[in-house]
């Protein structure tokens, strides 16, 4: 069981580490040639996002000869394109369709699990603090002190019109 959690944590950490370590072209130069793939973020990029229907560039840059001829045909009237050609053109421009993007994933389970793990850990920390860190309980929390406090509030006639003391019946000595 624990190794599953460890694996999930490992993948979380690995993802975070990967994001932190993605090299830009500038860093590549200083590090020397590495095997990992670099993404030049200074140029227009393609991404599949629900809120960005038209990304900065098309999905496929390197067009084969067939693709290029299809692109030429696209410049003419579109009624002459067959349905398969239209789909092929779409797939040149885009990686995933909206229904494909919207497919449910299980990522939320990892996230919620991670949240609960950290909340549980925080609970342990708080419990340890309550044992070893907290100062002694203030005397103002005692019932006796609070009763005397309440009596003083009523004696001072605090908020006698619409507030606290207005709820106390001074003749009978009880709450209204």
């Amino acid at each position, binding site marked *: 069981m624990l190794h599953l959690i460890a694996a999930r944590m490992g993948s979380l950490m690995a993802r975070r580490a990967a994001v932190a370590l993605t090299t830009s072209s500038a860093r590549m130069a200083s590090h020397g040639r590495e095997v990992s793939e670099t993404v030049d973020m200074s140029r227009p990029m393609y991404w599949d996002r629900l809120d960005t229907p038209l990304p900065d560039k098309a999905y496929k840059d390197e067009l084969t000869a067939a693709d290029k001829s299809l692109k030429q045909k696209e410049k003419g009237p579109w009624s002459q394109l067959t349905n398969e050609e239209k789909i092929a053109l779409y797939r040149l421009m885009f990686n995933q369709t909206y229904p494909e993007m919207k497919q449910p994933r299980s990522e939320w389970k990892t996230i919620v699990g991670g949240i609960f793990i950290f909340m549980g850990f925080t609970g342990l920390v708080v419990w340890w603090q309550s044992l070893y860190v907290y100062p002694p309980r203030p005397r103002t929390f005692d019932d006796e002190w609070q009763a005397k406090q309440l009596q*003083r509030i009523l*004696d*001072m*006639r605090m908020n*006698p*019109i*619409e507030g606290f003391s*207005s709820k106390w019946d*001074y003749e009978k000595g009880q709450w209204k």
Partner: protein
Amino acid sequence: MSLPKPVMRGLLGKRLRLHLPIAFALSLVTAIAFKYGVTEPRKQAYADFYKQYDAVKEFNSMKEAGVFESVQPSGE
């Protein structure tokens, strides 16, 4: 494949023509409701309280309870 051309202009104006009067009406209703639900009862509560208010009696009760620093209860 020929759909009618969608409305391209006047969208904000159309929305405002409906929603601004609604907004004004709702704000007015809220203000009136607050006036007659909160402020009028509050003014009445204060008036009623002070109609029967005996300041000297209240002072003496507070003095006997011992909440003042300048006057001590009559016993001491």
